[in-house]
Structure formats: C-alpha cells, structure tokens
C-alpha cells in the first residue's frame, strides 16, 4: 500500500512533496533545528523578554495563531482551501466559555473537550461539504464561518447573543496528590499563558509532523493529487478527508478555547471571515509545502505588525498587498527562499 502511494507521489510534477520514504524520520539537522526552536521558545524568550508582558503577549498570540493555522495546513495537504477555521475557533471558544462560566468545569478539562466538540462538529458538517472541491469547497467553508457567527449571535441564553460571554475564569491550578504541577494563572503575569501556548504549538507541530510522515500523511497527499486515482487503489477517500478536516477543526477548537481563556471573553464577532482568511494567509505566506510554513508565516506577520505601530491602521491593507505580491513573485511561500536546488524539503527551517 505504502509503495503505490509513494510512486504516485513521486510522479508529482510540482515537486512540492518529493520526499522519499527514507526521509520520513527526522534527519539530525532537522532534529537540531527543531530543538533550537523549542529552546528559543521555552528558554531564550522567557529569559530575554520575560519582564515585558507586552512582548510575551504578542508571542503568545503568534504561537496560538500558528497552532490554529497549522490545522488549516492539514486541510491544504488534502488539496482543500479551508475558510472555515474561524468558525471552529469560535465553537471552541464558546465551549470553554459556556462550560467554565455556567457549569464551573475546569479549564483543563474544557480544553481537550472543546477540541473534540469542534472536531465532531467538523466531521458532521465536513462529511457532506467535503464532497465539494476547489472553489466550491472554499465558497461553502466561507459561508460556514458566517453561519457559525450567526448561530452564536442567535443562540439566545446559551451564547448570550451579541453581548457575548465575559469574565471567563483563568485556568486554575493542576495538581496530583496535593502536589501542584501547574500553578494558578494570575492576571498580572502572561508567562503561564505563554508557556501553555508554546507547549500546545510544539505538541501540535510534533503531531502534525508525525501525521504527515505516517501512512495517513501519504494518503492525504494522494488525495490532493488525484482523488479518483486514490479511490482506484482502494483508499476510502470520504473517510480520510473527514479525518483531515476533523484534525483541522480539532486544532481550531483548541486554539479558540485558549484565546477565550486568555482574553477572558468571547463574542460572535471574535472570529469573522477575515480571521478565517488570515489563518489561510499565514499558511500560504510561510509555504504550503512545509509543516513549518504556518508557524513562519504567523510569527513573521504577527511580530512584524506588532513592532510597526505606525502602519497598524493599514495592517489589513498591507496583508492584501503582501498576499498579491507573494502570490505573483513567491508562490511557494517564504520558506521556498531557503530551499536548495535539489528540491529537498527542509522541514524545520525557522
């Protein structure tokens, strides 16, 4: 099975995924780079910037936004342009908001739960919608973002309509046998949120890396290239595309849940169409062929715009220009700049 898919992939003219089977395991260089990235996130940044809540908050945002975009990347890997990620982030946010404020459920239980509920909803909606391809899928998912926003707006007492849900409690302490592992999050210090965001991001990266180098990843790529061909060699196309979409929604839900607790509020307008478009833009800017693409794209854009206060009013305008310029002159994303001539993927470039 693996062999057929492998050959199918090697005949891909685009060259984006010319990864040989033996490359599935991280090379020592890639391991080194990844370790450096983790070290920077967990050691260098807190030491250098730990005293500046502002920068820590910016980086926390960037980390979770790239986590959510990583989900969109997974749907790109099956050849679908997903514009519904904002909807699932909203769902995740509301799950946390409703469960913590109304039923007093712990944030730590809500976090995975919100991912699961988003994924379940994603699978339910995705099953019919994923039959659509190309622009049809993009149109439908764009409408879905709007539909979920309207659902939240008209949710009555459950979602509190336009007033939203505020005063969402911060995550509480976690302990086993009286031993505190995670202390209570307090308002003055954004560092705990930062560490949580980085932990999620690293976990997400490892999970998506494992996924895309496993058999499932090869199946996903075969779907992107030719669904009919994939069906003909016995792949249950419907099942695998729902799995990919579910993974995407799961990550969207987790990200939304994190932001709900981080900002302590959620409104129907927290995630709109422009957020869905941004998630996709981050992926694309970094490079759709690289797992690290969404991370690079998000960090670059988020940090660049936080640092350039002067242009903040024109942020979205610059996004638009940037997207067109990139599309025309750098269609394979930022990471393609560092790609060597032999077309080998450098999975872990920063």
């Amino acid at each position, binding site marked *: 099975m693996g062999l057929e898919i492998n050959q199918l992939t090697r005949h891909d003219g*685009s060259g*984006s995924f010319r990864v040989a089977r033996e490359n599935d395991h991280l090379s020592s260089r890639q391991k080194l780079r990844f370790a450096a990235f983790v070290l920077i996130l967990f050691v260098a940044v807190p030491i250098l910037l730990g005293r500046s809540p502002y920068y820590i908050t910016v980086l926390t945002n960037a980390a979770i936004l790239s986590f959510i975009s990583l989900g969109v990347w997974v749907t*790109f890997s099956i*050849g679908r*342009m997903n514009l519904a990620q904002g909807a699932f982030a909203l769902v995740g946010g509301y799950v946390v908001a409703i469960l913590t404020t109304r039923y007093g459920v712990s944030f730590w239980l809500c976090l995975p739960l919100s991912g699961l509920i988003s994924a379940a909803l994603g699978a339910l*909606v995705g099953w*019919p*919608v994923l*039959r*659509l*391809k*190309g*622009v*049809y899928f*993009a*149109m*439908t998912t*764009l*409408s*879905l973002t*709007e*539909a979920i926003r*309207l*659902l939240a*707006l*008209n949710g009555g007492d459950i979602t509190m309509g336009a007033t939203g849900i505020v005063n969402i409690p911060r995550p509480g302490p976690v302990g086993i046998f009286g031993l505190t592992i995670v202390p209570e999050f307090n308002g003055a210090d954004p560092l705990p949120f930062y560490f949580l965001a980085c932990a999620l991001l690293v976990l997400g990266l490892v999970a998506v890396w494992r996924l895309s180098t496993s058999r499932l990843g090869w199946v996903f790529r075969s779907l992107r290239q030719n*669904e009919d061909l994939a069906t003909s060699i016995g792949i249950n196309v419907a099942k695998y595309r729902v799995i990919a979409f579910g993974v995407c929604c799961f990550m969207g839900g987790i990200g939304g849940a994190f932001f709900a607790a981080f900002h302590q509020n959620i409104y129907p307008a927290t995630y709109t*169409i*422009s957020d869905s*478009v941004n998630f*996709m*833009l981050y992926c*694309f800017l970094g490079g*759709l062929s690289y797992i690290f693409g969404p991370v690079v794209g998000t960090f670059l854009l988020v940090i660049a715009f936080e640092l350039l206060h002067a242009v903040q*009013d*024109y942020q*979205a*305008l610059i*996004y*638009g*220009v940037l*997207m*067109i310029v990139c*599309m*025309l002159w750098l*269609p*394979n994303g930022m990471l393609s700049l560092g790609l060597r001539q032999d077309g080998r993927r450098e999975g872990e470039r920063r």
Partner: protein
Amino acid sequence: MEQMLVNGVVLAVNYALIALGITLIFSIMNILNFAHGQMFMIGGFVVYYLYGIFKLNYFVSLVAVVIVLGVIGWSFETFFFRRMRRMATREENSMLLAVGTALLLENLALSIFGEKQRGVPPVVTGVFRIGTAYLPAGRLLVMVLALVLIVGLLLFVQYTKLGRAMRALAQDREVTHLMGVNVDRVAAYGFALGAALAGLAGGLLVTVFGVNSGVGNVYSIKAFIMIMIGGAGVVPGAILGAIVLGFVEAIGYELLPGSITYLLIFTGLIIFLLLRPQGLLGKPWG
C-alpha cells in the same frame, strides 16, 4: 404576502446582476472572484460620491461606475491573473490571489471611504400600490434598470462578436485560441464586464439600502450562495439562484427576526449541497 412577493422581485432582479457578473468571470476564466462583493461596494461608493455628494445626474454616475469597475476588473486580469495563469503550480493559487484582491479592495475602501454607513437621496419619489403591497418608485426604478441591464447583457453575450468570443472561451480555451481569438484580450474584457456588473448592482442598490465599506463580504457570500444554488458557471443557473435567494430573503426578513434568515439559508444550503453538489442546473462533476 403580496408585499413579500414585491420585495422578493426587487431583490431577485438585482441579485441576478451580481450572480451574472460572478458567473461570467467564473465561466470565462475559471476564477472565483472573491472580490465580487467588494466591487459591488465600490460601485455603491462611486454613486454615493458622484450622485450623493457632487450632485451629478444619477445615470451619469452609473456610467462612471461602469468605467471605474471596468478599469479595476481589466487591471486585475491584466496585471495579476494573467501572470498567475502562466506560472501557477497549484490549483489553489488563483483562488488565493482572488482572496488577496478582495482583501486589497476592502481595505483600500476602508482607508479611503471610512467605516460610516452612507446613503443617497432618492432618485425618484412616490409610491405605487399593488393590491395590498406598496412599491416605492425608487425600488421600481432600480428593478427596471436591473432588468434592462440583464436583458442587455444576455443579448450582448448572445449576438455580438465579443460576446461570442467570451462564450467560446468559456467552452474551450485552447480551441478558442486556435480559432484566432485574442484570448488574453477577451479575458480582460470579460473580467471588466463582470466587475462592472457587480458595480452596477452596487450603484443601484445603494439607493435602497445605502452602503458601507464592510458590506463586501456579505455580498460576496450572497453571490456564492446564488451560484451554488444554481450551479457555477451556468447563466440560467445564476438567474435561478438569484430568484431563489431573493424570495427566500424577502420572505425570511418578513417573518423571522434579523439574522435568523441567513442562519436558515446556510443550513438549508449545506443540506442542499449534500443532495445536489452541482447545484440545480449545473453539470455533475467529480
């Protein structure tokens, strides 16, 4: 009941202009124009400034709309999408570029026009009474103008040389090229025409609903819903989709509070796509 039907007709005719524009671009170039709603919005603003502020004649403003949006559409095709077609490696590229153009137009409008809701003085005054329903003369004018434009467009596409070239291009790009048609030029005119239709719809509806720089996405989504109902790239499908959406909206706004109508439309759409992914009149695919 009669009021709902009257409102439905007015909406449907104007939506048909939007749907025809996006269908034109989609069928000729296989590009989904994500910026269609933004073009609609710019059309509204052109009328707001020329007719509302500078007190020019309404019909002169509409001509200006055609010129402005025609130039925008022509430049998008000539400078962006043509280059893209030559070098695209992934199918998603043209879609991403289209999303980029939508972002660009929307934020340009936001910077230039601001966020305020703008309205224009009525072009004609008076109200007609049909049975128990009221039809303001302004809406009647908008409806008649839209109808004239639709008929004009259909005749143009059917009987002129350029229209024939566009239809040929929609059927088969390579063969059209072989027949000696300047494909790039026709595509650019097609994009300009599609954009102008979106702008005209905006210029007409601004007299009824007003305009603000945030309405772009709303109308893009409406355009998407219409072509998903009718079938993408099919002219009768676009008109049918517009009729369905126009009436559903008119009935929904009458009977249901605010945004619940659209929630139901989206839910219905997803169920509909489950049964008929190619739309009512589209050809089955994939």
